[in-house]
């Protein structure tokens, strides 16, 4: 039996990944004891869910026991657990705190819809945004947290599907989760997959020499660098290599941060001036957590963010 601690936090993702490794290595049946669990932040919950899903995918019996009634009902309302995952209530009536919004992404057709759905749910929790959402269709210039939220979610989902499910990892799980903390004006979101990870996506690229998981993560956040970018003589360049870069910049402009785990590396704010890097227990795939803060998020300026990377801001484009 694998015992879950009271707190599954992004700040202690190494501890969460250690639990995931334990789950991976434990003999059948896989039983997680959640009787002490009080808080599960988005990145941690996604990592756990993706691990349990992978166990089920390979035919193992998986149970989560000791849940509080509230958390069990909450988990069952989310679209992230497979129907066959056994959830058992414990003796606690209270205990789990916070509300989570979470989804599994089934395929590329599903990706855009899910990203928008979860962004809408989170934005609707913020009182000042409720009017903005209903008026968005009529007045697209209204500044709202919905746009940056949906922007980040759809970009990260796109990455997880296009890169994470590459290199033979076609059945990798992609899980997303978000939380809003009103007192602190903090929005926390995460997209986690158990696909091929950053390092594997750069293998075979002669022009990009990446030898470690940490270097692969940093390379992924470098502007105009993508594992699917190849301005060769006869091949079409596919990706511009700015998706993760702009998501990071959005987070930093909102006084938030980005944390990335892939392989044995955990990096916060990759390629930014305050980047921090640590070793972690191994995570197959990529786990990204983004924190955004209000009210700074309301003032994020896309022109300012994108102009940093624009090689020709005065290009004559016909806007009518």
């Amino acid at each position, binding site marked *: 039996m694998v015992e879950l601690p009271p707190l599954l936090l992004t700040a202690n993702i190494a501890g969460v990944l250690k639990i995931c490794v334990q789950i991976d290595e434990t003999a059948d049946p896989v039983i997680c004891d959640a009787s002490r669990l009080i808080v599960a932040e988005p990145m941690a919950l996604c990592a756990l869910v993706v691990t349990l899903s992978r166990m089920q995918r390979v035919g193992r019996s998986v149970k989560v026991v000791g849940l509080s009634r509230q958390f069990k009902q909450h988990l069952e309302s989310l679209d992230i657990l497979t129907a066959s995952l056994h959830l058992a209530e414990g003796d606690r009536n209270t205990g789990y705190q916070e509300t989570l919004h979470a989804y599994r992404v089934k395929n590329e057709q599903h*990706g855009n819809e899910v*990203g*928008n759905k979860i962004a809408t749910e989170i934005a609707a929790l913020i009182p000042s945004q409720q009017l903005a959402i209903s008026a968005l269709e009529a007045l697209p210039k209204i500044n709202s947290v919905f746009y940056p939220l949906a922007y980040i979610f759809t970009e990260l989902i796109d990455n997880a599907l296009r890169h994470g499910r590459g290199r033979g990892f076609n059945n990798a799980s992609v899980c997303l989760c978000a939380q809003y903390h009103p007192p602190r004006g903090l929005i926390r979101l995460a997209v986690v997959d158990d696909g091929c990870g950053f390092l594997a996506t750069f293998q075979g690229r002669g022009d990009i020499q990446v030898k470690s998981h940490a270097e692969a993560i940093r390379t992924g956040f470098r502007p105009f660098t993508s594992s699917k970018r190849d301005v060769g003589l006869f091949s079409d360049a596919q990706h511009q290599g700015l998706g993760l870069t702009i998501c990071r910049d959005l987070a930093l402009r909102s006084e938030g941060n980005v944390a990335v785990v892939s392989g044995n590396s955990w990096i916060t704010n990759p390629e930014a001036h305050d980047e921090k890097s640590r070793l972690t227990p191994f995570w197959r795939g990529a786990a990204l957590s983004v924190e955004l803060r209000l009210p700074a998020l309301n003032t994020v300026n896309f*022109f300012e963010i994108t102009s940093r990377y624009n090689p020709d801001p005065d290009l004559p484009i016909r*806007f009518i």
Partner: protein
Amino acid sequence: MPKPQIGTSRKTMSCSLAIGLDTGAANVLGTRYSAIDFRESIERQLESCPSVELNFAGVFVTQSFVDELLGPLILRMGASALERLAFSGCSDEAKAILRLVIAARLRDHSARQESRAAVPVNCVYYPLPESP
């Protein structure tokens, strides 16, 4: 999957395409997959229309979506793409992203043209010797 809405103006011999969903809900078009149908519509319209107007009214877009929408086109056509494309109904955010993607892909187009120019047209092919 969003379906492109196409229109043609006989007066100006230009075509138009609405980039967006007809669901009536606020939406961000973010994934590359969601751009593919729209790009294919643009390419079809450019075969028969001298100019295509892309209408972004009511929709928000990401850099990846716009790159998938226009990137391959600009890589093939270069600056001539800008003469045949017009953009309407764009929010400030959409304009910023369009400017970024188009400028960067034009730069890639130029880099590709230079690479191709470096290969001699009349280079001679020497076959590799056969293995013993």
